[in-house]
């Protein structure tokens, strides 16, 4: 029964991990930008949710669309106004730019919110679902379900809408897409906006689960990195699998090797994958 509980813990965590990583994967896959800002955008979403709950009483789960919209706007403007200017440059340039922007955002958040850790304390708490041998923590369960819904929405958006097809087309062949009449800079901005939107939504979800501080962004960025490589760049199902695999691995790692080594397992697996299957578990070219 302990194993079943550990597996459930892992899956609940993994669902959230998928949501944390999917925006990062999208931006990396389509724009070829390693978006160092991603972690801080998640935290910004989490702060927005925190203040929405404490000041306006809006439940963080209900705030998810608003956080997404807010962050979409920020992301869109950042890409359209700033990052688009260096899109033709080597990947190191965009990496450096997002790194610098991240420093600015992180320090601005320290100034605005202080570095203290805060959590959303739901009143009344959601409690847990006691199924006898195993317990399901409700806030994690709901957050995981919502996270997976968001990931699915992105999947549908990319496959079934005009803008989604345009994003995929730009990823596959930028020049051909431009010739077909796709406004490439605009698609870049929309994609980056979508990445930020998912970061904001994920932030809103995690605000209920993890304490947040402007400085915790690096932890989330690290997870996003690992998941993208585990699952393979360029696929939504890959991110989903990567997130779930990481969650379950960390859970069982804690059980078998002690909490001290749970994160080590993930990185050992990461190295193994890079050696033997560098495209990740489900990676392929193009973002589908």
């Amino acid at each position, binding site marked *: 029964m302990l194993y079943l509980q550990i597996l459930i813990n892992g899956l609940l*965590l993994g669902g959230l991990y998928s949501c944390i990583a999917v925006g990062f994967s999208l931006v990396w896959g389509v724009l070829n930008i390693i978006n160092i800002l991603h972690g801080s955008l998640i935290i910004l979403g989490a702060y927005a949710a925190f203040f929405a709950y404490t000041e306006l009483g809006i439940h963080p789960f209900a705030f998810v669309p608003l956080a997404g919209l807010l962050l979409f706007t920020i992301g869109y403007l950042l890409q359209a106004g700033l990052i688009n200017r260096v899109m033709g440059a080597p990947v190191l340039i965009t990496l450096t730019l997002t790194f610098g922007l991240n420093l600015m955002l992180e320090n601005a958040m320290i100034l605005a919110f202080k570095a*203290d850790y805060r959590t959303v304390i739901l009143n009344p708490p959601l409690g847990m679902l006691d199924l006898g041998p195993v317990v399901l923590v409700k806030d994690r369960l709901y957050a995981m379900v919502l996270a997976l819904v968001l990931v699915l929405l992105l999947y549908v958006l990319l496959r079934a809408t005009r803008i989604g097809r345009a994003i995929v087309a730009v990823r596959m062949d930028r020049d051909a897409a431009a010739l077909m009449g796709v406004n490439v800079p605009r698609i870049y901005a929309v994609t980056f906006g979508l990445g930020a939107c998912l970061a904001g939504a994920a932030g809103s979800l995690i605000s209920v689960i993890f304490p947040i*501080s402007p400085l915790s962004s690096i932890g989330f960025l690290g997870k996003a990195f690992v998941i993208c490589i585990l699952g393979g760049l360029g696929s939504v199902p890959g991110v989903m699998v990567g997130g779930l695999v990481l969650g379950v691995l960390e*859970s069982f790692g804690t059980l078998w090797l*002690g909490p001290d080594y749970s994160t*080590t397992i993930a990185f050992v697996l990461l190295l193994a994958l890079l050696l033997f299957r560098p495209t990740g578990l489900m990676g392929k070219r193009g973002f589908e």
Partner: protein
Amino acid sequence: MHPTRRTGLKQFLSVVLLAALPASAALAQNPILIGAPLPLTGPLSPEGTKLQRGYDLWAEEVNKAGGVQVGKNKMPVKIVYYDYQSNTSRAVQLAEKLVTDDKVHFMFSPFGSGATKAASAVSERYGVPTLAPTASSVEVFDQGYKNLFGTMTPNDTLTEPMSDLVRATAPDVKRIAILARNDLYPLALGNEFEKSAKKRGFQVVYFEKYAIGTLDHASAITQIRATKPDWIIVTGYINDMILVRKQMADQGVKVPIMTMITGPSYREFIDASGPLATNVTTASWWHPAVRYTGNDVFKSSENFTRVFRAKYKEDPDYTNASGAVVGVVLQQAIESVATLDRDKVRAALASGKFQTFFAPIAFSPQGYATSYQPPIFQVQGGKPVVLFPKAIKQAEFAFGVN
């Protein structure tokens, strides 16, 4: 002769001449410089900022009173800060820069046992007397260094009375689970807890370490839950405590006694944990409830609290007070020998007994304080109340952390 070389020679001569001037005359106008590398950004920034407030308050009060009495002169103090971004190796580099570049007279250590130990090698190399406000692990002081003086008492002064208190008030408690952050101080504290518990016949049913930066403790908590402990002990820093407490509640862990060090004595823990903070026990080296009088610039614990509140509009916690007390002790040592001579100040620190608002401070031959008993607290009614020592006890031990 080449003109630039001539200027160089002039500069050289003037430096030699300046150095030859009587030291006291030059010093009378200059402040006493104290180097303070702090983690003002990065994961330890809450703690770094607290410490800085303590240093600043002391410096401000001393300078308001005209400065430190060095023989016949009053000398103002100036603290030279650098932000080491919660990065220990950067703390060591900056400590070196403070000594060699900024030419500070004395130093305050960086935050926490790990960084203090790392930077203490620099103070030792240059012979700079250094006060450590937040290093309580004896492992920091085991290198035979002569220049490091820690104002906190060792970790076992937290774990021993805590274990005694539990033994005396809750005889049914038998099974103990310990979850310790794998970091110098929290791990050392976890080990001390294990020793103290075993000595008293408690059964340690779970003892694991978690990695620095762990976000999810759910599986460790599932295991702890399965071992059915009566007393759960968690060590780490404030963000870890908030996280673990929340995730324990998520899994419906209920336990008669839960001890978390450090964190619950900070307002931030109580704010972030809300009702979950209730009945969590902790221990720390100082609290506004302690009642000591000193012959320092703050005069008493109560007055320190008052002055701190006036400046920062909130109650001081032990890290704030730790920042102020290192200043107070250094000042008393300098004033007792009436010079800034490092050898004399070092000797005064090593042999002195300092009456302060924080506690009476005297250092063991290894360099850590052994002269007072840190209080034990419990969060009751949304604030920490003192359970021990008896002289300042504010409430009875309450059981049941749900």
